[in-house]
């Protein structure tokens, strides 16, 4: 037993150490970026938003699942999801923190970030997004605090219920406003669709649930937690349904563009469909992160094999991230005025043209390291959260539930 405890402690140490190392690398990359400016990234004139914005939107989506799972369990009295409500609140708080942090390396003047508070322009979707990210973080933290109270009194139960009712619309607002950062813009026809907000909400439910499933799989596999079959069935079902709706929305987008054949939008769609410059994103989104996990999750039998559910969840995360890149970068690649020579890229690289008619974007190592560091930070926060916020209670609650179920069956 002691040996086992030591081994677990060593494994924990290695895990946290490796993550901390990644964070240090990211910090070094960020310092480098601060010294030389955003020139160190792959972003330029035409595609002027890249991995950071994609990652921001992705973390925003991930944070949703948490609060939506936690709130729905309460509001709709979904018993099967209740054991996950604390984990949901934890991932919501962590992911929204990461989302806020991933904007900072994207800013040309991060030192001036306080201008958001000092000189807000309320016509900008971005200022509303900053506000709703802040509110959402506070909500998630409040919910987390209440959930981890040692002895929940009826008063705390009541407060939790109120928070659940506030949390659900807040999650919808968060995703809709983030979607409107893109969806309200007339400059990129591929963005300018009323479907953007619903699409963001559904892919948030999808990816957030996928993240929770992956973490739950980790806990069950390595930390001795045990979730009921009904919980796994619920998670798998939620993902299958939201994945189907998500793909349906994206398909509607594609069809609307393709059927009308408006050149400015077709240029972007052609880049995404097989044979185009961004076709890899299509395969990641539709096959690897779309049809494959859907087939895995749509059958109730496989939904009980948690390794398969975890695999499907990972694939879903890949697909949703691919969609975010497709939307942001491919959506920006074709300027609305497609006349030669195009738009000046903003820096001079000997041998490369100064003008681009179609955007070109490949992230640099700086961007990759910073994004990796953010993911590592998230993993550390979730690990520490699970370890120190009374995970033992979570575990016993799960076991308790299972025993109660058994008793009921008997």
């Amino acid at each position: 037993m002691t040996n086992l405890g030591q081994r677990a402690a060593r494994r924990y140490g290695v895990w946290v150490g490796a993550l901390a190392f990644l964070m240090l690398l990211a910090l070094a990359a960020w310092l480098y970026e601060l010294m030389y400016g955003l020139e160190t990234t792959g972003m330029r004139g035409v595609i002027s938003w890249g991995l950071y914005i994609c990652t921001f939107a992705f973390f925003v989506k991930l944070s949703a699942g948490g609060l939506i799972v936690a709130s729905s369990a309460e509001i709709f009295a979904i018993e099967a999801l209740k054991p996950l409500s604390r984990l949901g609140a934890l991932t919501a708080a962590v992911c929204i923190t990461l989302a806020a942090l991933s904007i900072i390396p994207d800013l040309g003047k991060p030192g001036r970030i306080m201008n958001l508070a000092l000189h807000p322009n309320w016509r900008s979707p971005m200022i509303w997004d900053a506000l709703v990210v802040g509110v959402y973080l506070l909500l998630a933290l409040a919910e987390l605090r209440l959930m981890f109270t040692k002895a929940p009194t009826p008063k705390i139960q009541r407060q939790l219920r109120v928070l659940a009712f506030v949390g659900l619309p807040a999650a919808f607002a968060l995703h809709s406003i983030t979607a409107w950062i893109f969806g309200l813009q007339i400059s990129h026809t591929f963005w300018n669709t009323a479907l953007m907000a619903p699409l963001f909400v559904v892919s948030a439910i999808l990816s957030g649930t996928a993240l929770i499933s992956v973490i739950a799989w980790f806990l069950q596999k390595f930390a001795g937690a045990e979730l009921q079959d009904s919980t796994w069935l619920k998670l798998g079902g939620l993902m299958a349904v939201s994945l189907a709706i998500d793909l349906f929305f994206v398909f509607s987008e594609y069809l609307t563009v393709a059927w009308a054949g408006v050149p400015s939008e077709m240029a972007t769609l052609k880049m995404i469909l097989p044979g185009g410059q961004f076709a890899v994103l299509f395969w990641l989104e539709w096959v690897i992160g779309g049809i494959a996990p859907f087939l895995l999750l749509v059958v109730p039998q496989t939904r009980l094999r948690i390794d398969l559910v975890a695999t499907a969840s990972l694939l879903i995360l890949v697909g949703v991230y691919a969609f975010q890149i497709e939307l942001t970068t491919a959506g920006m690649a074709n300027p609305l005025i497609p006349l030669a020579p195009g738009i000046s890229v903003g820096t001079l690289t000997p041998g490369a043209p100064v003008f681009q008619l179609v955007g070109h974007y490949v992230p640099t190592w700086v961007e990759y390291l910073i994004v990796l560091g953010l993911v590592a930070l998230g993993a550390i926060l979730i690990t520490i959260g699970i370890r120190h916020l009374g995970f033992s209670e979570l575990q016993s609650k799960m076991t308790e539930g299972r025993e109660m179920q058994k008793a009921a069956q008997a």
Partner: protein
Amino acid sequence: MTKRWGIVIDQNRCIGCWTCSVACKSINNQSLGIHWNRILTSRPNESAPGIGPATPAIDVPSGKFPDVQLAYQPTSCQHCKNAPCEKVCPVGATFRREDGAVLVDFERCIGCRYCIAACPYGARSFTWGKGQYAHEFPVGYGQDYRSAGRLVFTPERPVGVAEKCTLCVERVDKGKKPMCVEACPAGARIFGDLNDPTSELSIAVEQQGGRRLLSDLGTDTNVFYLPVSRPNKVRS
């Protein structure tokens, strides 16, 4: 009545010499790789062998050989009245003066590049890194310029802010024309007050069918183009 400064560009007179672009680049000391003002031609024909939209080309004719023609569309900030860049700026660093000039406050901009993403004309640039210059010394205006206390021009832009055509407010505020208008050797540009129906600019727009870029977006721009083919090519 307040002024509403505008520019009219006669595409029938424009010879595509890039003088306006070079004059703009030097008076505003733009670093290498940045052009606030560029001369657009046509969309490359995707079906032509070896040519696609990604092929770098300066002058691209429209039509099919041998029936081709070349027209020039000098394009910089259109100084929209309903400016997407101004609406999206989260901190109000981009602002519109009463006389119609859309400007960037270099001391307030946080470098989020939302304005660049929002501009339908691709008129904005970003200072990705420390500017590289053709000369070791700043050329052009050579000093800071403030409008209503806000820093709207500085010879070397800070790293990490958005920049674009300022309508040469330095000159306009002194009663002069913007540098692109001053420098055009073909007399293709007219600068003036759109609110004054008797100005040369207003008359040209009125009588010769001034069109605006992407006018259906409702950006309500202050830059007008007189098309190559138009019923009455006489300049008033």
